[in-house]
Structure formats: structure tokens, C-alpha cells
């Protein structure tokens, strides 16, 4: 890859990580990129850096535009180490006049790198700095998705440098949204929202509201991961609005893990019932479905029908994993039901139901339990309950 001019005198100088596959539990089968941006004006400004291992690539790309030592300011929009890992070494090389960050950003940088000798300049929402013919305005976006997070806006360019917001984990040689398949791009953006931002939906709503009422004009959104939005800015903002409002389709997920296929037989019977009601169904066997893909499907599904066999008086380990991950991401406004086969106690099903209730799912009926192997009647009960859930999904639309 090479540095790319994204607007006049504004360059992408980041790094592509083709081979990374896991982001602490979020699967990224298509790799990712760590985007950094360089603005050449009377002051030369770098926005964010890259993962530590990619310092050389960052320096190479910066060097294609200016000598790294010419950088005056480094803006740290987000402290997470995939964006700040290269910062300590870069600061040693560049010796910038200012390291610009939020108050929470300074605290986080100190806690990461223990360097109180850096030339911090703390900014807050509403602050701006002049860099010559351009101004940089700062918007703190606390908890989108860390306390330190902020975005930088250059009004003269209508450019929003949005750190992790609007990002996607997708390694490509293309830099812009209109150079790749839009369906794939929106899927990657959806997966990112579902696995990183879902729990901060209220904060996303607040931010979108503030941006709307401020009348800020944006014709390019440059995130810290993936493709830059220039032709589909409206689409991604609309999608963030829909996702953060928990808008759902007439869609249900059947998620399960099974020991000897009994819980699986029940899952398929539930799917039959849901389908018979005309609801779109996704069946996710946790032994082959990654938790991050399940979350992506869950984002716009109205109902989650969740099954587990009982093992050692509890749920199967993959079910515990999924439920813990799901709970942390705080899905809202969902309909739920629990089911499963068991041998003697049936605690696994109770555990699933209790977790869904804790997540404030609107539960349809009592958990549906079957001893050992379901009979034809048992499966008919599953299909019947599937229909009932399907009806509830349709009524919610």
C-alpha cells in the first residue's frame, strides 16, 4: 500500500493488517486496517497512529508525504493500542510541538505509556485550533467507545475524522467506500457496530442528534479502521441511526448448542414454526457459528430463541460464552424464549432463561424443556411456540 491523498493535502498514511483474525474475541476474517491521517497546512498534523508492530509502515507512508520530523501536532482521537501503540516511538522520532487529546485521553495515555514529559494539550468539545488555512474542531465522544474517544472535524474540508466510529474491520487495497462492494462494506460496518458499539446505542443517538442540530456539514467520514466514506455518508449515518434505535426486521435467530442432537432437533422445530409465520429465520449452531457473527445477526433480529442442553447442572460452555458476550453488548427491545433437552435436572435451560430475562428480553412462555430425546409431540410443541414467537415478531413491526 501507499499513502493516499483523500482530500487536497490530506493523506491516509495508515497500515493494512492483512493477517489479523481476532480482535479480543471479535472475529475479523478479512483482516483490518489502522488508519492514520496527515494534514499538510502551515502546521502539519497527524491524526492517530497504528498498532506498534506497524510503526515502520506508518513512517514509510508519512515519509511519502513529508519528513516525519515535520509533524507539528499529533492528535490522539483514541488511545486504544491499535491506534496509539506506535505513538511513543513516533513521538521520540518526531518530537512534536503538541500531543492533542481529551482530558480522559491524557489520563489514558499516562496510564498506558507512563510519559508525563510529552507536550500534552488537552481539548474539549467546542475547542478548535488553527493550523493555517484550516481549523480543527474537536468533539468529545466519551464512551464511543472508550472514555478518551473524540472526533476531529475540519469544517473547510467537511471532513470528519471519526476514530473508531463508522469503522469496519476489513483489509483492502482500496481506500474509499465507492471502490468496494457496497453490500460487503455495509455488512462489515454492521458487524463492527454490533460487536463494538451496540452497548453505547444511547450515546450514538445523542451524538447523531447533536450533529444534526449543529448543522455541521460532512461530505467525508474518515474512520480509524477500514474504508473511508465519501459516496455513502448518508447511508452509513442512516444505518447508525437505525442500529442505535434498535430497529429490527421481521427476523428471528435460533441460537443453540447441543450434546446429542436433541436440542438441535428442537431448534429446527422452532425454525419451522417461525418460518411458517413468514418470519426470516437464522439458525446458529454455536459449535460452528462465531459469537461475533451471531451478534451481527442479532443486531436487527427482533427475537432470539436460545437453546442449550444441560451439562454438569449448567449450560454448555459455548452457550455460557455467547450469553456473557451478548449481555455485555446490551441488546435492547428483543423478544426471547429458552429451550433445551436435559437428562435429569434441566438447569441449563433455566440458566438461559434467567440470562435473557436479565437482559430484559420480553419472554414468550416458560422455557421449553424436553427429557433426553424429543418425541414428535415435543417437536410439535416447539414448532407451535415458534409460531407464537413469529406472531409476536410480526406484531412488533
Amino acid at each position, binding site marked *: 500500500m501507499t499513502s493516499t491523498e483523500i482530500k487536497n493535502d490530506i493523506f491516509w498514511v495508515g497500515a493494512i493488517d492483512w493477517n489479523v483474525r481476532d480482535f479480543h474475541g471479535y472475529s475479523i476474517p478479512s483482516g483490518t486496517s489502522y488508519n492514520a491521517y496527515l494534514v499538510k497546512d502551515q502546521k502539519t498534523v497527524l491524526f492517530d497512529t497504528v498498532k506498534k508492530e506497524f510503526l515502520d509502515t506508518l513512517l514509510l507512508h508519512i515519509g511519502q508525504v513529508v519528513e516525519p520530523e515535520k509533524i507539528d501536532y499529533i492528535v490522539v482521537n483514541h488511545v486504544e493500542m491499535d491506534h496509539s501503540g506506535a505513538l511513543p516511538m513516533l513521538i521520540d522520532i518526531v518530537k512534536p510541538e503538541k500531543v492533542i487529546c481529551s*482530558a*480522559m485521553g491524557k489520563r489514558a495515555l499516562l496510564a498506558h505509556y507512563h510519559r508525563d514529559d510529552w507536550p500534552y494539550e488537552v481539548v474539549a468539545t467546542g475547542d478548535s485550533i488553527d493550523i493555517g488555512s484550516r481549523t480543527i474542531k474537536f468533539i468529545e465522544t*466519551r*464512551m464511543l467507545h472508550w*472514555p478518551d474517544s473524540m472526533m476531529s472535524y475540519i469544517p473547510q474540508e467537511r471532513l470528519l475524522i471519526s476514530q473508531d466510529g463508522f469503522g469496519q474491520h476489513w483489509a483492502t487495497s482500496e481506500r474509499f467506500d465507492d471502490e468496494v462492494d457496497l453490500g460487503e462494506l455495509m455488512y462489515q460496518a454492521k458487524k463492527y457496530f454490533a460487536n463494538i458499539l451496540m*452497548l453505547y446505542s*444511547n*450515546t450514538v443517538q445523542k451524538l447523531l442528534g447533536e450533529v444534526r442540530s449543529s448543522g455541521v456539514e460532512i461530505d467525508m467520514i474518515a474512520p480509524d479502521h477500514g474504508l473511508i466514506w465519501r459516496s455513502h455518508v448518508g447511508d452509513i449515518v442512516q444505518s447508525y441511526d437505525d442500529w442505535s434505535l434498535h430497529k429490527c426486521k421481521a427476523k428471528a435467530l435460533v441460537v443453540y448448542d447441543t450434546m446429542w442432537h436433541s436440542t438441535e432437533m428442537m431448534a429446527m422445530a422452532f425454525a419451522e414454526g417461525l418460518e411458517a409465520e413468514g418470519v426470516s429465520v437464522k439458525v446458529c449452531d454455536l459449535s460452528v457459528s462465531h459469537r461475533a457473527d451471531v451478534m451481527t445477526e442479532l443486531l436487527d433480529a427482533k427475537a432470539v430463541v436460545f437453546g442449550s442442553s444441560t451439562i454438569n447442572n449448567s449450560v454448555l460452555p459455548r452457550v455460557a460464552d455467547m450469553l456473557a458476550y451478548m449481555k455485555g453488548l446490551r441488546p435492547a427491545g428483543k423478544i426471547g424464549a429458552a429451550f433445551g433437552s436435559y437428562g435429569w435436572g434441566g438447569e441449563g435451560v433455566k440458566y438461559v432463561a434467567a440470562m435473557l430475562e436479565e437482559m430484559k428480553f420480553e419472554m414468550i412462555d416458560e422455557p421449553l424443556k424436553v427429557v433426553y430425546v424429543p418425541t414428535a409431540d415435543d417437536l410439535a410443541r416447539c414448532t407451535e411456540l415458534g409460531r407464537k414467537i413469529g406472531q409476536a415478531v410480526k406484531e412488533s413491526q
Partner: protein
Amino acid sequence: MQKYVCIVCGYVYNPEVGDPDNGVQPGTPWQDVPETWVCPLCGVGKDQFEETD
């Protein structure tokens, strides 16, 4: 009434405003905010708050 700030994310709990979205009515002093309440911004518990102006 005394305000409290979340030391994790900077959210300020103002008793006059409360947190009605999460069941805490306006006018609820800090000591009456349920122990199960969490910061509406970042999700940490009451033990992560300290007094602020």
C-alpha cells in the same frame, strides 16, 4: 444537592435531574440512588463515583 462524577468516563450525576431513563427520579439524592444503578454512559457501578462541584 451534592453532585457526583464518574471517575471512569466523566458523567456527572445531578440529583436535581436524576436519571429517569433508568428509573431514578429527578430529586433523588445520591445516597438514595439504588446500589444496582450503573453509570448510564459507561456502565460502571456507584463505587466509581466521587463528589464534584
